[in-house]
Each structure stands twice: as C-alpha cells, then as structure tokens.
C-alpha cells in the first residue's frame, strides 16, 4: 500500500511537470466542447433552391411562393435554363432545381394535370431524399389548396380522419445539442484517457526507467494501479469540467442522478484506461502504441453511435458495437442526461462496463512482465 503511494506521487509529479501536456488535455477538450456542438445541425432549413420557370404564369409563381414560404427552402436564384441551374449545383450553390415547364398553368386548368421536374444533388442521398420529399409534400398541399379554391363546395360525404398527434419526449424542444453534447464529451474524455495511458508504460520502456522498476520488489498490480489511479483522477476532472461546461453553456443538467452518472463514468474510465494500459504493455514503442490506439479509437468512435444511430447498422456491425465500451458510455450518458434513466434502467450498461474494467485491467496486469 505504501509503495503504491510512492508510485502515485511520482506519476502526479510527472504529470504536473509537463505544462504543455496539461494545457492540451484540459484546454483542447473544453474548447472543442464549446465550439463543435454548434456545428451539429441536421435541421433542413436552408435547402438551396434554384427555380427554372419556363411558364412565368400566376400559378407557377404561386407554387414557388408556397415552397419558399415553407421555411425549408431558400430561393437562391431564378435561372433561365436548366444548364445554368446545373452549374449552380456543380458549385454547391444550389441543392435542388425546380423546373417548371411551359404550359404548366394551361395544362393544369385545361387538362386537370400538369407536371414539374425536380432535380436534386444526390451525393448525400439522405438529405437529397428529404429535400425531395419536402418539396413533394408542399406541392401536394398546393394542389389541395387549388382544389379547395376551385371546387368551393363542401364535400358531400365526410371522410374518416385519423388524427395523428406527435409528441417528442425527453427533448421536447428537439434541441440537437442535448443529443450531441453528451456524445462529444464522452468522446473527448475517451480520447484523452486512452492517449495518455496507451503511451505511458511504453514510454518508460523507451526511456529505460521501467527496467529500474522491474528490479525493485514492487508488485505488478501496484505498478498498474500506480498508473491507473492518476489517470483516472485526471479523466474524472476532465469529465467534471465537461459536465460544468455543458451545464453553463448548454443548460444541460442530467435528468437522472448525477451520482449514478459519475459512478458510471468512473467505472467506464477504469475500463478504458485498463485498455490503454494493456495496449501500452503490448507495444514495443510509443509510435506503435499510437497507431494501435488510433486504430481502436477510430473504430470505437465510428461504431459508438455518435454520428449514426446503432439501430440502423447491419447485424454484423451491431455485434461489433456490443464489445465497444465507448458505445456504452455515449448511450448511458444520453439516457441519464436526457431521459433520467435510473441505476436500475442502466444495470446492464453497468454490468458490461464493469466486466470490461475487470477484464482489461486483469489482462494489463498479466501482460505487464517484470522480465525482459
């Protein structure tokens, strides 16, 4: 026990001695947490619309007005020809082209049917699909308006109507930041903790100091604990600052228990740091540790559900997410912060992450060899 205290003291001295590293691990996450969530905005409010109106009629204008009044579209330009409009798409100055043919109005009045052409930049298939469906439904509304105006008589047989009411729980204002901030915070803490630990032991290998420790009677578990505890404390501090920033700047306060949140994050950190230390005991050089760390971080992050929901993934990828500690943290943070899930709701998360913590640290202790 006393030996451990000496090791802890040493580790802290080393951490606090390096001011640049300290600045990097505290300032960079805070800075990113303050800025980046503002970038996360999926809302489709400014679909850039270019109109090519060959008809120049009253109804073509009315339809365009209806589309721009919807709030989803921003009319950037009225082009003369389709090719002009296409140029805008090429330059990313427009997302959608609405081409109204000649005789649009005439056909509508005389034939009861007419047509338009909608062309979307579909490189991002998802947003293109949404943009098109928005424009479609506005056009449908437009035709309903016309019908009401032209027929002008009450419907003879009233139709059964299913009234669908939607409500959005846990985030009624649909604030995307509530969703993205906990995820970004989880990621930042993960990056900091993993980078620090994965490079740490191997750095002692490179410097030769580990050999000096290996000829002393310290126990393996003391050595690993001596590494784990300081970085755990550091991680918890970064996390607490992150919580504070989330509260002060985004007004995010956990709907659930703060204690449960810290408890979960605490266990998660033990698991994560254990994995970092394990990486470090395997690595032959810091450079190698770094690339391996980068490899795992990338996969953990991509499959962590921050940018794309796990539910949408194919089965093989879902199975991979079961062994991704980062995914559990992001999910638990969101459940706790937004839904107010209780310890009992999160019991499986707790159990699994605890399992990871035991597994990784045991492996790290076993893999740390006091022999060369």
């Amino acid at each position, binding site marked *: 026990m006393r030996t451990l205290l000496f090791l802890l003291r040493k580790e802290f001295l080393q951490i606090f001695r390096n001011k640049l590293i300290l600045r990097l691990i505290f300032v960079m996450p805070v800075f990113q947490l303050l800025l980046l969530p503002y970038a996360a905005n999926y809302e489709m409010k400014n679909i850039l619309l270019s109109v090519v109106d060959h008809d120049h009629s009253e109804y073509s204008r009315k339809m365009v007005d209806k589309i721009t009044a919807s709030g989803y579209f921003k009319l950037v330009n009225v082009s003369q020809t389709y090719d002009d409009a296409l140029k805008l798409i090429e330059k990313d100055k427009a997302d959608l082209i609405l081409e109204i043919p000649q005789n649009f109005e005439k056909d509508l009045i005389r034939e009861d*049917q007419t047509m338009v*052409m909608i062309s979307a930049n579909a490189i991002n298939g*998802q947003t293109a699909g949404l943009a098109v469906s928005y424009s479609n439904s506005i056009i449908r509304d437009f035709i309903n308006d016309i019908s009401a105006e032209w027929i002008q008589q009450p419907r003879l047989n009233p139709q059964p109507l*299913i009234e669908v*009411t939607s409500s959005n729980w846990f985030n009624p204002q649909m604030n995307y930041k509530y969703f993205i901030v906990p995820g970004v915070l989880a990621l930042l803490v993960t990056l900091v903790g993993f*980078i620090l630990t994965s490079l740490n032991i191997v750095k002692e290998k490179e410097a030769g100091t580990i050999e000096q420790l290996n000829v002393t009677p310290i126990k393996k578990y003391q050595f690993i604990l001596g590494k784990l505890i300081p970085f755990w404390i550091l991680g918890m501090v970064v996390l607490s600052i992150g919580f504070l920033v989330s509260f002060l700047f985004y007004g995010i306060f956990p709907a659930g228990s703060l204690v449960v949140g810290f408890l979960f994050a605490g266990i998660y950190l033990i698991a994560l740091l254990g994995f970092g230390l394990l990486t470090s005991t395997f690595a032959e050089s810091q450079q190698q540790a770094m690339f391996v760390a980068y490899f795992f971080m990338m996969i953990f992050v991509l499959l962590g559900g921050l940018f794309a929901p796990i539910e949408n993934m194919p089965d093989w990828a879902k199975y991979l997410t079961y062994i991704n500690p980062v995914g559990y943290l992001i999910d638990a943070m*969101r459940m706790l912060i937004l839904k107010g899930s209780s310890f009992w709701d999160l019991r499986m998360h707790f159990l699994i992450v605890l399992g990871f913590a035991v597994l990784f640290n045991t492996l790290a202790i076993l893999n740390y060899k006091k022999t060369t």
Partner: protein
Amino acid sequence: MKQLLTFIKKEFHHILRDTRSLLVLLALPIVQLLIFGFAITNEIRNSNIAILDNAKDETTQKIITKIENSKYFDIDRTLTTNNQIEEAFKSGKIKLAVVFQTNFQNVLAHTNKAQVQIIADATDPNQATTLANYANAIIMDYQNDLNETNKPPYTISAEIRMLYNPELKGAYSSVPGVMGMILLLISTMMTSISIVKEKELGTMEILLVSPIKPLMIILSKVVPYFVISLVNIATILLLSVFVLGMPIQGSLFLLIVVTVLYLICALSLGILISTVTESQLAAMLLSLLGLMLPVVMLSGYAFPIANMPVVLQALSNIVPAKWYIILVKSVMIKGLGLSAIWNEVLILTAMTIFFLFVSLKRFKIRLQ
C-alpha cells in the same frame, strides 16, 4: 543526394521492421472505409417500437400489421398501460411508441375522427423526426386506403431526378469524407511523431550535427510516409470503385493530383506540429485529439456547413479536409475538370506553403 537516399532507406527500415504499426497503417483505411460504407448509415431499418393498443379492434389491428410489415419498424413490445411507456423508453429499448385511443374503430366510424398518438424518443431529434414521419406516413397511407374514392381531381406530377447518385447510395457522401479524414489524420500523426521521436530520444541532435541539411532530414522522414500514404490512396480508390460501387466520373489523373496535393498539405501540417512539440505524447494529443473531432465535424462531412453558425462556417475554412472533400466530390462524382476546382486547389496549396513556411521558421529558431 546520396546521403538523402541513405537516410530515406534508414527510415524505411524503421518502418518496415515495426510490422504492427505497418499493419495498422495499411489496414486502417480498409477497415474504416468498410465500416463507413456498410455500417454507418442513417437509413432507418428495423427500429424497435412499442404499441399501446387501447382499442384492440379490427382497425387498430390492421394498422398495427401495416406498421409491422414495414421495413422501418420492429414491434419490440406491446404495452397495456400508459405508465409502461416511460419505463420502456428509459430502459433504452424502444425509440417510438404508438398509442391508439380506446374504442378506436367505433369512434372512427361514428364521428369520422379517431386519435393515434405517436411518441418519439427525441434524445436524438433527427432520428425522432424521421421515425415519427415514417409512422405518420404509414397511418396516413391506411387512411388513404379508406378514402380511395375521394382523390382531389387535380394533380401535379413531379418528375424526379437524383443527380450524380440515382440509387442514393450512402458511399457517395461517406467515401470523400473518409478519404479526407484518413489521409489527414494518418499523415499528420505519422510525420509529427516520427520527427518528435528523434527529439525525445536525443537522436535529433546527432542528426543535426551531421553534415546533412536539416531540410534533408525532414524530407527523409516524410518520404516513407508519403509512400505509405500513396499505397493507402490506391487501396481506398480500389475499394471505393470495386467494393462500394463508386464511379470515377472525372479524370483519374486529376483526382490523383489533387489527392497528392492534399497529402503534401497533411504531411506539412505534421511537420508543423513536430516543430511545436517536444514529446511524442504532445504530438499525439495535437494530431489526434486536436484534429479528429474538428475534422469530422467541421469538414462538411458529418454536418452541412451551410447550417452552421457564421463563426463555425469561418472556422471550417481552415480545415484542409473541407477543401479536399469538395475536390473529391467535384472530380470523382460530378466529373468536373480543373477549371471548376482551381479555387480549392489554390487554397490547399496556400495552406501547404503556410505550414512549411512556419515550420521552417520555427526550425531555424531552434537551431540558433
């Protein structure tokens, strides 16, 4: 020149001897691209939902069957009371709950109006909106079936063209993003770390007192990683075309030229990082922690730049990946030529020159 070759050889030996690192460097782009190409999707499939059917009549049963048959939803559980809804959400199992009022069929038949409530887990607002819209559409579809005879007499049909990506494949937007991210992160990390490593181990001093020019030392460090990155580019392009089914609409040569330009830009950034750090840890923190999220979030890959606040739109301009992603989309997917992209090419070139200029200045200061 001969010395340079000797040095480059030495660096290659270092890299080739470390098989684990090499494996990571070469396998990572493949893994990442496959994950992006096949796993990361915002397409809704089989989302778990709960049903609370307070009516349990023929009509609600028909609607429920319709919901169940859609590819979007899996009915995870059937609830019996309102209180269970919150419970189901909190345990994190379901994303949406559909609640039918009591006596649904009778009410609908007699008053022509019955209620369905859709409750979405808006933790992820984007997902919630999409799911609610899909559920709504299914119910509306059912209603339209009921009202088959009463269609409005006028129609405007829309002829829809999905430009560049008629099948709406996800890869079209993810591949350029992945290329921008992988090349930048790997190249920056590799160069900054390999240079800082010599500083940390004290071998840099030895190199600096040798008769070789400092520029040559740096160059010899960068060349091997440049070669590795070229291999990565080849892998990414081959995978994109043959596995993910991406076209190369424009000139392959132009695509390679802009990619090499981007690569040089990333390597220069790595050199810059190496001149401002003294330890591998600091270099790693800067090039991974400092770049990863900003690149993902500000490059226009994950979120549209047009939606961002002005400050972030301005900030996105200094992210090299943003310009490269535009370039890849323009050349690879839109098939545009040099005349349409010279602006982005110029910006990336300017960035590269800036990085190298600052590095060189800092390097000289160190030497004095």
